[in-house]
Structures are given as structure tokens and as C-alpha cells.
């Protein structure tokens, strides 16, 4: 019996062994030994952050070429270098990614439903997906906190998650469980290339900013003394906070919710403080750039748009070269904005910091003369950004316009910027109502002239900044409203002596929304003038685009360069545009924003064949976030902008007028911010708010 038992078991075992041996021979599947090697060097957390089911799956993905050496999101540079070594790849460095909570607070949005179920975001989202007044925002039950394997998230004082960047491994656990998409795993490249989307938590100021700066975030960072962080936040959207902090007309402040209660937050003042803080600290903060890609891009025009495009291309790892027709970079910032608003040494300091990232510049080179699109291609430039601005002036279309002593405002300001002789007279008439007109008038005052500014509408319709209008008035500029020039009168030698004008009245609103000025017949009058500056509008000079009478690009009916409004790609796939050349004369912040948009598109064109956008891109202000009143907010006066020189001293000097807020004042101003989300805002922020936040962060 024992023998038969042993024989039977042995027989079954042998049969099974033979079958398996034959099967293993016949059914053998080759498995690359590198899979096991790669798996052995991965972090081994099986966190799923890489998108593969565990480390084994990730290793297989790497060996099959579906994933790169940086597949392991929590492994860091060491793991990536080891994987690269096994796979025979080169690895320089891995972009640091962290979980990013894109909402800085405000009090919790009100509940539409009373929810008494399981305190979990996913549960509430399943039952009442629109249960908060804010359709996109955080539900506040902290599911992400429990999902984080690394203890990197805690709920902040307002019920929003706060991420500790030092502990975050970017495994993506929090992002996966968040049902509202409030948390995103982002690296620098993704943050730079992100355009505002209607599903983002966009406070009104952020929606309105043409540069798409995350305003609530940097104000919050300033409020807790993290000036370097604030500057980094600003620089993810614009490269020139020093300049823009001085010259921006801050359209963001027009929609600030506190403006419904009292005066809006001094957003631009806070930005200027952060930028000045770096300059006064004596050292430049490091600006992170992605590893070099070696891709060459030509940036034609070294104005705000060109500088911005080159800066972001460099940060994305590419090698831009700026071709500038003038002897220095800056465009209208240098040659159009007077010294008293933007001192040139500050502009130089800022531009030098950008060029130090590794951007080449070729000065005094003219597009269309010294080089063209085809020569750029021949020289190995894979894409071109055209941002030559709008330097051609509009004509008044009146008699004697070309008389001696009549000049455009931009020509005058450029001469002043270059330090050339202006031949300005004693009695100056400036025609126009925009910022260029005001700059021309205030600069003329400083050169000792008696200045009259003639505008065909009233003061309320002037497109210039209100601070500038008031500043000019204080400095002695005389306004002549509701007056339009009809003729320039000259002496025998052809030099201007008078400007004849006609009185206007306002009719119905025109396409711009402003009331159309109409002349009142028989009201002609004369005003004495030995110099006349016209500043009634500019347009781009597009003749440089023509080669042998042919232009491969599209010109719009407004004489600007035509391009896709979102990607800024022109009719030629490798050519992109932005700034005044695309929009016509606009704000500096708009040009800086377009520069980033174009850099984003060029990056996508180079790395993904074509630029692309999502269907949820934010173009207009989001209606339901624009309140008409904001109740229950405690009053707090706005800090006035400090002035460096008194009004009566200004007319004789080009020294900077406005100053920077003190640290105490900027903290106070930052704490006036209501910390708006989409529909929530801080009704009455307590005095000790800052302290609370700092305590929590220290604890983390």
C-alpha cells in the first residue's frame, strides 16, 4: 500500500512536472531582464502616482519605452538617474513637482444643502455635486488629508488644504481623491504654460489681469512675509514685476470686490513692494529654468512682449535670441515711458536679470532689412516670435500737419529716452487723451514748457490712468477738453504758431462705449503754440513683413498682424506674434501676458507639433463671480501711495515720483484683501489672521 501510494503521488507529480516543463518550453514568453532591474531601483512605494499599477507596471512601461527615466514621481533625481543608467539614457535633472492647491481662501462658501452624512468630499460630491455656492471649489472635508501617505497635507484655518512642499512627493494621491479638482500636481513647466480656465478658482482680480497673475496668492504670501514666494508667483506669469509695479494701470483693481465696499486693494503697490524688496536686498533671487533643450528661437523685438516671450522660452529650457532694432532693450518701457515713472536704471537692472538666464541679444538689427523670416530659418531658428510693437503714429488728417514744430508724442519721448535734442519750444500743445499724451505733457513740463493738453471728449472719457491725469494737473498741465484741432497755423518760415480747434459736444455712445464727440459749427478758436505733439494713436509698421511685395502673413483690418487669439500662431505655423503688433496699442501688462502665451505656444509647437488649448479657457469675466455689492465687510482705509518728491518740485526734475510702501504698510494693505474664491470672500478678516496662518505653516 505504501509503495502504491508513493508510486501514485510520484506519478502525478512527475506527470505535472513534465506537463509544466513542456508548457514552459512551448508557452515561454520572453521578459526583458531590465524590467526586474528597473523595478529594483524604483522607490517601491506602489503609490500609483506614475499612472501605472504599481512599480512593476512602471518598470515595464520604462522598458517598453512608454515611460521615461523620470517615471517615479516620488523617487527624485537619484532614482531617475539609476533608471536612466540601466536604460542607457542621459539624465540631467528632474523638474520638481508638488501638489498645488489653487485657492487661497476666503470663508467657506455657503452650503446650498444641509449635509449630515459621511464627512468626506467624495460622498458629498456623489450626493450633491453642486452642494456649495461655488461650483468649482473645495468642499472642505479633508479627504485629501487622509489620502496623503506622506503627511504633506493639513486643513488650513479656513477649511482649505495646505500643502507642505517639503513633504510632498507629488504621488498624486490627493489629486486622485479630490472630486472637485482643487488640487493639481504641477511642476514649473505646467504652471508656466497654464492658461486661466473657467474651472479654476479665479478671483475677479485674477480674471481681469491681462497677465493672468495669481493675485490672491501673492497677496497672501506677502501678508505672511513670504516676499520671495510672492515674487516667484508673480514671475510665473510676468518677468518684469519692477517695471509693471510702476507703470501698470492695474485693471485688476477695477473689479476688486473690496471696491464695492470702499477703495479696492492696492494690488499694484503690493506687487511693486515685492519687486523692490528683491532689488533692495542686493541680491537676485534664483529663477528656475528647465534643462536645456538646445532649440533655437528668434524673438524679433525687445519690447515687453519680446522680453516676456524670451524669458518664458528660456525658463522652459529653450535658447531664444532677441533681435532688437534699438541700442537697448525695453521698447516702449524705455522709449515711451518717461524717467519719472520708470527710472531707466531700474529697467536696466530688471532686464539684466532676465538676460542673465542665458538669453542672447542682437542690438541694432532691423527686421526686413538685416534679416527676414527665411534667413532666420536658414540660421537654424525653429520658430519665430514677432513682437515689433506699434510705433507708427496715426495722422490727424488736418491742414499743415507736417509743419515745422509738429511732431508725434512717441517721437518726442523716444528722443528724450535716447538723450537727444528735442527742440521743444515754450508753449506746447499736446493733442490726445491717452497715457502717451499725458506722458508727453508731463515730460514737456519738466523741460520747462507751458503745456496745454487738448482732448476731444471730457476728462471722464480719457483713456489715461486717473492718477496720471491728476498728476499732470498738479504739475501745471492745462486741459482743454471737448476740443478737436482743425488746422495748424504757421509763420512765413513754415513753423507752427497756433492750433485752430473747434469745440465739441458729446453725442451717442460709439462702438468703444464712449460718447461720440461731435463738432459744434461756428465755434472755431485758436490757441498759441510753438510746438505741437500729437498722440492720438499708434499702429504697427508691417511693411517689414513684405518680401518682394509679397507677405506670407495675414494683416487684419486694423493694420495689425493676424493670429489665433489663443495660441497667437500666425498663418505660418512656425511664426507667432504678440503684444502691440497683434493687439494694436495696448497695456504693457497685456504685452507681457501675450509674450507668455506665445512662449507657451512655441513650446508646444516644438515639443508636441502644434499649440493647443482646452475648451474651458477663460476669455471673459465669469458672470456669477462679479458681485454688485459685498455685504458684511469691515471697513479699512486704503494706504495712500507714498510720493518721493513733493508736487512743487516735480516740474523741474525727472526723478521718480511714486515710492514704495513700507513693510508695515504693505502688510496692512495685504490684509485688506478679502481672499476671494469664485463666489466666497472673507467677510471680515480678523486682525490675527496672518498669525494664525503662520502658526499652521510652522506646525507643518
Amino acid at each position, binding site marked *: 500500500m505504501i509503495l502504491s501510494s508513493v508510486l501514485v*503521488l510520484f506519478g502525478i507529480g512527475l506527470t505535472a512536472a513534465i506537463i509544466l516543463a513542456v508548457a514552459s518550453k512551448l508557452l515561454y514568453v520572453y521578459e526583458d531582464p531590465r524590467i526586474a532591474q528597473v523595478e529594483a531601483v524604483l522607490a517601491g512605494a506602489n503609490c500609483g502616482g506614475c499612472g501605472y499599477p504599481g512599480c512593476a507596471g512602471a518598470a515595464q512601461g520604462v522598458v517598453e519605452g512608454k515611460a521615461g527615466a523620470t517615471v517615479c514621481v516620488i523617487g527624485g533625481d537619484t532614482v531617475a538617474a539609476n533608471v536612466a543608467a540601466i536604460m542607457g539614457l542621459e539624465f540631467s535633472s528632474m523638474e520638481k513637482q508638488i501638489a498645488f492647491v489653487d485657492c487661497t481662501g476666503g470663508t467657506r462658501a455657503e452650503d446650498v444643502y444641509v449635509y449630515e452624512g*459621511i464627512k468626506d468630499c467624495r460622498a458629498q460630491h456623489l450626493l450633491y455635486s453642486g452642494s456649495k455656492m461655488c461650483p468649482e471649489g473645495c468642499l472642505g472635508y479633508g479627504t485629501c488629508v487622509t489620502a496623503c501617505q506622506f503627511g504633506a497635507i493639513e486643513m488650513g484655518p479656513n477649511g482649505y488644504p495646505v500643502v507642505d512642499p517639503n513633504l510632498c512627493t507629488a504621488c498624486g494621491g490627493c489629486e486622485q481623491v479630490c472630486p472637485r479638482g482643487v488640487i493639481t500636481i504641477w511642476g514649473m513647466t505646467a504652471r508656466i504654460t497654464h492658461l486661466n480656465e473657467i474651472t479654476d478658482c479665479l478671483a475677479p482680480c485674477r480674471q481681469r489681469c491681462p497677465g493672468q497673475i495669481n493675485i490672491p496668492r501673492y497677496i497672501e504670501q506677502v501678508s505672511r512675509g513670504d516676499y520671495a514666494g510672492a515674487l516667484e508667483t508673480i514671475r510665473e506669469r510676468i518677468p518684469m514685476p519692477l517695471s509693471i509695479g510702476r507703470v501698470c494701470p492695474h485693471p485688476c483693481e477695477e473689479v476688486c470686490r473690496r471696491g464695492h465696499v470702499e477703495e479696492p486693494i492696492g494690488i499694484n503697490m503690493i506687487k511693486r513692494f515685492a519687486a523692490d524688496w528683491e532689488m533692495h536686498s542686493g541680491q537676485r533671487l534664483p529663477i528656475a529654468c528647465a534643462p536645456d533643450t538646445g532649440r533655437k528661437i528668434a524673438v524679433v523685438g525687445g519690447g515687453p512682449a519680446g522680453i516676456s516671450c524670451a524669458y518664458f522660452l528660456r525658463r522652459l529650457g529653450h535658447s531664444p535670441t532677441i533681435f532688437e532694432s534699438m541700442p537697448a532693450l525695453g521698447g516702449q518701457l524705455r522709449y515711451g515711458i518717461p524717467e519719472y515713472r520708470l527710472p531707466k536704471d531700474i529697467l536696466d537692472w530688471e532686464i539684466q536679470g532676465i538676460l542673465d538666464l542665458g538669453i542672447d541679444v542682437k542690438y541694432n538689427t532691423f527686421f526686413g532689412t538685416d534679416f527676414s523670416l527665411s534667413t532666420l530659418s536658414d540660421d537654424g531658428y525653429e520658430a519665430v516670435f514677432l513682437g515689433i510693437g506699434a510705433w507708427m503714429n496715426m495722422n490727424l488728417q488736418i491742414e499743415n500737419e507736417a509743419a515745422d514744430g509738429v511732431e508725434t508724442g512717441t517721437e518726442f519721448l523716444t528722443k528724450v529716452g535716447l538723450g537727444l535734442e528735442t527742440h521743444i519750444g515754450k508753449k506746447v500743445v499736446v493733442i490726445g487723451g491717452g497715457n502717451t499724451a499725458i506722458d508727453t505733457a508731463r515730460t514737456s513740463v519738466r523741460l520747462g514748457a507751458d503745456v496745454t493738453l487738448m482732448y476731444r471728449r471730457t476728462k471722464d472719457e480719457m483713456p489715461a490712468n486717473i492718477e496720471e491725469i491728476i498728476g499732470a494737473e498738479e504739475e501745471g498741465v492745462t486741459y482743454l477738453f471737448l476740443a478737436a484741432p482743425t488746422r495748424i497755423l504757421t509763420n512765413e518760415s513754415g513753423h507752427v504758431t497756433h492750433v485752430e480747434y473747434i469745440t465739441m459736444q458729446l453725442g451717442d455712445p460709439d462702438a468703444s462705449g464712449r460718447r461720440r464727440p461731435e463738432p459744434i459749427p461756428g465755434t472755431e478758436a485758436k490757441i498759441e503754440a510753438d510746438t505741437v505733439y500729437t498722440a492720438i494713436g499708434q499702429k504697427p509698421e508691417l511693411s517689414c513683413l513684405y518680401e518682394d511685395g509679397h507677405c506670407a502673413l495675414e494683416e487684419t483690418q486694423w493694420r495689425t498682424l493676424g493670429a489665433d487669439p489663443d495660441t497667437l500662431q500666425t498663418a505660418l505655423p512656425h511664426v507667432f506674434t504678440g503684444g502691440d503688433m497683434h493687439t494694436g496699442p495696448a497695456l504693457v501688462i497685456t504685452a507681457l501676458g501675450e509674450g507668455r502665451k506665445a512662449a507657451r505656444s512655441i513650446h508646444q509647437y516644438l515639443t508636441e507639433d502644434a499649440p493647443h488649448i482646452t475648451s474651458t479657457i477663460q476669455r471673459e469675466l465669469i458672470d456669477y463671480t462679479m458681485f454688485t455689492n459685498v455685504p458684511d465687510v469691515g471697513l479699512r482705509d486704503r494706504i495712500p501711495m507714498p510720493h518721493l518728491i513733493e508736487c512743487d518740485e516735480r516740474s523741474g526734475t525727472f526723478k521718480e515720483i511714486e515710492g514704495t510702501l513700507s513693510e508695515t504698510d504693505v502688510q496692512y494693505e495685504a490684509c485688506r484683501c478679502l481672499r476671494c474664491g469664485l463666489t466666497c470672500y472673507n467677510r471680515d478678516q480678523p486682525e490675527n489672521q496672518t498669525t494664525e496662518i503662520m502658526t499652521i505653516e510652522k506646525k507643518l
Partner: protein
Amino acid sequence: MDYFVLVIAAIFVNNIVLAQYLGNCPFIGTSKETSVAVGMGLAVVFVAAMAACITWCVQKFMLTPNDLGYLQTITFILVIAALVQFVEMFLKKAIPPLYKSLGIFLPLITTNCAVLGIAIICQREEYTFIETLIFSVASGLGFMLALVLMAGIRERLDLSPVPVSLKGTPLGLIVAGLMSLAFFAFKGMAS
């Protein structure tokens, strides 16, 4: 009709997990997510049916004629282990997507006493080959049903405030006990 009763009995009355108390390790271990539970359930159905059929043949043509019934357990373990290995190799070669979707579950089944239990019950009840096939498939489905129900409950438990000491397996075992009690209500429907 007999076959229908056999199926009902295997799935509900004599459920392999909740009435026979077999296969508790994978029952607790793989019932955290519904999708995983379905994968494991399908793998058990497939392997249990194959194992029951092959062991029926081994018993019928090898052990019983040679009067070696006492070798049943060790023989069946050997056969099931070899079978699972073979199935794994076959699927890896022939149907890679199915192999990938079954993943870790196939090797787990090697030591799954539910599969061995199903094979032994078929012999104890002296089922015919057809009855063995039907019973094993139905028992596998019973296992899958218990697993999916358990996973559904545990997914909800994950969202609930639970005392730390009870989180995970302890609460899983308590729930399994309660489910088992509930399945006793089927007693008397069929035997």
C-alpha cells in the same frame, strides 16, 4: 430542475465562504475594492471549474480504482497547484490582456482552500461530471457574490468614521460574520 436547485444551493444556501467558511484569506484580502473583487471572483470561477473537472477525473480513474481514496487531499493540492501554474503560463502566452487583468489573483488561487474545498465537496457528494461542472461554477459564482457584496460594504466603510482599532481587517471580519448570519436565512430553500 435538479441542476437549478444545485445552482441555488451552491450560490446561496451552501455559499462556499459564508456557509462553508472556506477561502477566508482571499475573501478578506481582496474585498477592498469592487473592481478587484470582480477580477478575483472571475479567476476563482474559472480555476474552480477546471480544478473540479480534473480532480473528478483523477478520483474516478486513478484513486478510486486503486483504492487510494485517502490520498485525495494531497493529490488534489498537487493537481490544483500544477493546474494554476499551467493556466498562468497558458494565459500569459495566449491571452496576455486576460493574464494582465487577472494579475496577482492567479497565483493567489494556488493556495485558495475554496478551490480545494469545491473539488472535495464534489467527491463527497458523489456528483456526476456534469453536476461537478455545474456545482463548481456555481460555487465560484457564490464566492464572487460574497466578495463583491463585501467589497461594496467595505468601500462605504472606508468613508465612515470608524474607531482606529477596528479599521481594516477587524471590521472586515465582523462584517463577514454578519453577512454569514444573513446567508443563514437561505437555509431550508435547498440542501
